[in-house]
């Protein structure tokens, strides 16, 4: 067994430090070591996007990152965006517009959509579809996911205009 390395991460604003084998996949670190079970494992082969997290300002599939590569990174998971006591606009809009059915893809969808809206605050429908192409959903047929993201963008922009 290769020797363990010392890893430092900032996850949802909190500093984390631990020893880990370099080959540990970041998705396992988050789910099993840190108990953040929001990011899901759908395919484990880099295709479905259920494991999407935000790492250093980019949407990343956590099943395809070694914890060693992430050492020093700033990570946000769905838990860091909002929760039962205060839903993020995207979470609220997914609920309002039926952007989820079984919910398995939803944490990855919302975490990805959050980064998409950071980069492009007023996307067209086509830009939303293109920007969300790394996230698969087996239930909804995507229509309501796209609607929810567009509604969240509209609300965020209205809020900004009012301020």
């Amino acid at each position, binding site marked *: *067994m290769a020797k363990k390395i010392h890893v430092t991460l900032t996850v949802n604003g909190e500093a984390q430090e631990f020893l880990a084998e370099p080959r540990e*996949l970041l998705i396992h670190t988050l789910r099993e070591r840190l108990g953040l079970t929001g990011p899901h494992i759908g395919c484990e082969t880099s295709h479905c*996007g259920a494991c999407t997290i935000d790492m250093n300002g*980019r949407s990343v599939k956590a099943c*395809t990152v*070694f914890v*060693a*590569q992430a050492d020093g990174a700033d990570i946000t998971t769905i838990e860091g965006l909002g929760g039962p006591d205060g839903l993020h606009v995207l979470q609220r809009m997914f609920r309002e517009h039926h952007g989820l059915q079984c919910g398995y893809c939803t944490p990855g969808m919302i975490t990805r959509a959050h980064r998409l809206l950071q980069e492009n605050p007023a996307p067209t429908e086509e830009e939303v579809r293109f*920007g*969300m192409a790394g996230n698969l959903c087996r239930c909804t047929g995507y229509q309501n996911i796209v609607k929810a993201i567009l509604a969240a963008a509209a609300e965020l922009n209205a809020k900004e205009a009012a301020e």
Partner: protein
Amino acid sequence: MIPPAFEYHRPTDLASAVGLLAQLGDEARVIAGGHSLIPMMKLRMAEPAHLVDLQSVGELKGITVASDHVQIGAMVTQSDLIAHDGLARAIPLIREAALQIADPQVRYVGTIGGNVANGDPGNDMPGLMQCLDASFTLTGPSGSRDVAARDFYHGLYSTDRADDEILTRITIPVPAGGYAYEKQKRKIGDYATAAAAVLLNRRGGTVSFASIAMTNLSDMPVWSQAAGEALLGTDCGTEAVTAAIAAMLADIDPQADNRGPIAFKRHVAGVILARAIARAWSRT
């Protein structure tokens, strides 16, 4: 899907990275974005004992655009390529192609160096670089050398790069005229069933320059000199395009797989090339 154990190294400059490869020998592999290598390690098709992570090597970053050429560091990601407006003005073909690679998450981390060094015929950048007549700079223990993209590929996962060399930089002459990257895939995020990169220029009504490369239609990218020559001096009409497609079909060697049988791939290759030529010509 647990990858094999390895020791991890994160050098902060090129000399240390090259030194590590020299010291660790063929037990070591470099890792860039990891989006080809990690899937291979999960399948245990690659079991490197040491991984040398290039993420902190500053010399491998950055894009510089000069009047007649562009230089791109190996660790530049596909999303960096897409976002760079100066690059898009100089060589719009690169943005057009990069937008057709994988999906947003993969493009944030997948690097141009990893894409061209990987040696997988499914990768889009190798054919693109052959079309553009790019050259790759390789740095090893005894210094640096440049290899033309058109000479770099030897076969499946076999390239001109020695185990102790790092691909550091890509240099591309700025082309004139029209361009197109056309890719047929089963779904967004899929590798090509067939893809074509085309550069064309005109003098009056005739083709004065043509460069054509095809992706995922052989065990390596195919720069079809004969297909380009079939267009030279013509009006780029139906007859010339038919001749170019016939020449291209003589240069490719697709294999049957889950993207379809050989006859289908040859058919798609012809359709894709015709579309790419038409779009490139319309942009001259």
